[in-house]
């Protein structure tokens, strides 16, 4: 007993600062020492555990000898990951009770492999650009699954961290999520629920990043998730969100992983966490699961004009499919079924009768065609994997000439993407600028030219199968042109309209309104309206051209013709522009260099 006491004293002294111990306790170093991100006393063995990892370890060691018959309270059952870690350094007494719930959980998961799954943006929703990640614990080793043609992922387990937002309305949701008013917790769901939720219901693509981790590490992760699952955390949408916690879990299993080091302290963006996984070289393989819409457009792309027409007529007018060959007929029906799944996603999941009445005849007819569908090939999608996106921060330096004056603009953008940036991995024809500032100088004076809290624009997909509108919104500070002068203005603008894609050309037209305050010189409220009529030309992911007539006549004429061409890749870009005010012909011509970070 004396020896045991001495050993534990040694262990305590040497290991309370052990990286893995701190990670298992989700401790962060602060000015005063350490603080755990967990917010429930049940996460700690010691009442001081939240701020004292040394006391926590001492309490853990001491309480392992407790004879606590209730598995819900017994230390062995509550902290299997920590006990597992401790066994590396000392002899640990066996648990006096059978940890039934923990064992049931462990057996249910039967985890042999692990992946990080990213659910991508969904169509016509720029806000979803942020993305989401969760963990999938798999019932087969990756290598075994590669060889097994009967293998499926659907019975694997999804481990998801999210905010508990019950009852919150949209405004509370937004503010609360940022301010940390909600708690977040973990849930463990059969992966098929996640597939239905993301692929089907929300029509979002799923990307699986298979990780290289051994059984010991996976066992520790399962144990750690059990510990985490019984506590709650303050949920911070921007910082300690889903992706942040995913990385923390992975780091707890392997002390040599430093995933968080690749990310800024002040915020965590899910797609950026995927880049961290790649940088730490733990990704073994990436697989792709298409959203309902992705699947539909992929199948549509395999059809010729007559077959596309047949799909449309079958779904919208119930007109029988012409006498194509069985293989082509099967493909037409498959495409039609995908279209129904996409258009009626929410209704189908609710078991809505109307949706079922549309779908069932198609299904019955398809079942009678004696052709088995081919598995769809999405290999080309790998080139658009979310870890390949351009960095979401952007710096730009512009050299311009305006009215014979030479000027320079310095621009910084916090997140994410605009119409002319390289859109590989990003939702197409979308602008989502968050916190962007432009400072202009003529060499002597500096002026804040433009500042957006939010500047969003979406050119909705409008084709024979889809009717998504186009819209825009901006909140911030800009310059109003009044009697030949530029005046500082704050407020918001919004617009609504349509656009349609014709190969690489997307013409658009949006009505425009403005509600603002001209804070310089005039000190007047300003309500304006107008229209944007323009053309987005996308030669490929990298080369884009923008031409727009910004028609503004009320309360005074500020109509402008804006033209910009840009080349950009994942790390830098180059552009040229020519803008002119039609009323007086004052023009800006310039060259712009971009760096994506």
């Amino acid at each position, binding site marked *: 007993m004396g020896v045991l006491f001495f050993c534990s004293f040694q262990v305590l002294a040497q290991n309370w600062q052990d990286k893995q111990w701190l990670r298992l306790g989700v401790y962060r170093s602060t000015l005063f020492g350490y603080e755990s991100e967990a917010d429930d006393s049940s996460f700690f063995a010691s009442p001081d555990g939240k701020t004292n990892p040394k006391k926590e370890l001492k309490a853990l060691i001491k309480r392992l000898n407790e004879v606590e018959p209730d598995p819900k309270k017994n230390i062995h059952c509550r902290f299997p990951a920590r006990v597992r870690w401790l066994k590396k350094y000392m002899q640990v007494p066996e648990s006096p009770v059978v940890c039934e719930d923990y064992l049931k959980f462990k057996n249910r998961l039967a985890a042999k492999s692990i992946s990080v799954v990213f659910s991508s943006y969904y169509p016509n929703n720029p806000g979803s650009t942020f993305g989401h990640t969760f963990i999938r614990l798999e019932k087969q080793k990756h290598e075994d699954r590669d060889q097994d043609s009967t293998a499926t992922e*659907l019975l694997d387990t999804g481990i998801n961290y*999210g*905010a508990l937002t019950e009852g919150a309305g949209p405004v509370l949701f937004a503010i609360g999520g940022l301010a940390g008013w909600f708690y977040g917790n973990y849930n463990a769901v*059969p992966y098929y629920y996640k*597939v239905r939720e993301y692929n089907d219901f929300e029509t*979002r693509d799923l990307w699986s990043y298979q990780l290289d981790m051994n059984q010991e590490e996976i066992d520790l992760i399962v144990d750690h998730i059990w510990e985490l699952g*019984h506590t709650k955390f303050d949920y911070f949408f921007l910082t300690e969100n889903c992706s942040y916690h995913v990385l923390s879990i992975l780091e707890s299993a392997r002390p040599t992983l430093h995933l968080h080091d690749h990310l800024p302290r002040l915020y965590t963006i899910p797609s950026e966490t995927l880049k961290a996984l790649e940088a730490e070289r733990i990704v073994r393989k990436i697989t792709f699961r298409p959203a309902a819409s992705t699947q539909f457009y992929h199948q549509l792309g395999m059809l010729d004009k007559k077959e596309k027409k047949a799909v449309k007529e079958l779904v919208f007018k119930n007109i029988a499919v012409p006498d194509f060959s069985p293989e082509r007929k099967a493909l037409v029906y498959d495409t039609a079924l995908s279209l129904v799944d996409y258009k009626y996603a929410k209704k189908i999941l609710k*078991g809505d009768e109307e949706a079922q009445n549309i779908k069932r005849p198609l299904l019955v007819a398809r079942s009678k065609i004696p052709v*088995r569908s081919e598995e769809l090939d999405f290999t080309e999608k790998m080139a658009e994997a979310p870890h390949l996106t351009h960095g979401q921060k952007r710096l730009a330096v512009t050299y311009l000439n305006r009215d014979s004056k030479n000027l320079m603009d310095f621009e910084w953008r916090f997140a994410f993407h605009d119409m002319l940036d390289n859109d590989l991995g990003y939702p197409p024809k979308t602008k989502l600028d968050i916190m962007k500032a432009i400072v202009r100088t003529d060499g002597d004076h500096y002026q804040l030219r433009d500042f957006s809290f939010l500047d969003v624009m979406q050119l909705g997909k409008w084709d024979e199968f889809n009717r998504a509108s186009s819209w825009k919104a901006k909140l911030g500070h800009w310059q109003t042109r009044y009697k030949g002068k530029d005046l500082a203005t704050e407020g918001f603008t919004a617009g609504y309209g349509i656009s349609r894609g014709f190969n690489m050309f997307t013409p658009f037209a949006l009505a425009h309104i403005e509600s603002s305050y001209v804070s310089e010189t005039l000190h007047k409220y300003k309500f304006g309206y107008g229209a944007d009529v323009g053309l987005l030309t996308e030669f490929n992911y990298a080369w884009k051209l923008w031409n727009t007539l910004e028609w503004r006549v009320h309360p005074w004429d500020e109509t402008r013709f804006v033209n910009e061409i840009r080349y950009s890749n994942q790390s830098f870009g180059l552009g040229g522009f020519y803008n002119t005010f039609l009323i007086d012909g004052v023009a800006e011509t310039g060259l712009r260099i971009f760096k994506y970070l």
Partner: protein
Amino acid sequence: MKFILVVIAIMISSAAMAARPYGMAGCGLGSQMMGKEGNQILAATTNGTGTQTFGISSGTSNCVTATEQTAMIRNFIEANYASLVTDMAKGQGDSVKTLSNFYGCDTAAFATEMKANYEKITPAKENATAVMANINDVIDHSATLSTSCMHAI
């Protein structure tokens, strides 16, 4: 919107409870996964878990903890209904493959039989219990499946 979904799902499931021997609200996505939703845009970004059903500490949903074969199969059919019936009509897919594994059948043979008996197996109105019963029937009467499926019920 998800809140309405939950309310509707609960109302529908209460009405149909007589036909549901398993679980309270059924195991479909609508009744199990969807918590309350403040706003589509923001819900997509925070992925709020509005429901405690699958919480690791609570985790008492029969939809995931059932270990009995019949319950597991029925839960799977219900939660993956739309995808499953589509796969069966096509003769291939993840959902029908997973179902085949539950029964221990050869995937290709199972999918073929499901496709051949499609109209018989799938009722006009969504019903997981009926589908399972029909599948069991088809397996029993199938020359290929009745002998080769290792875990036929």
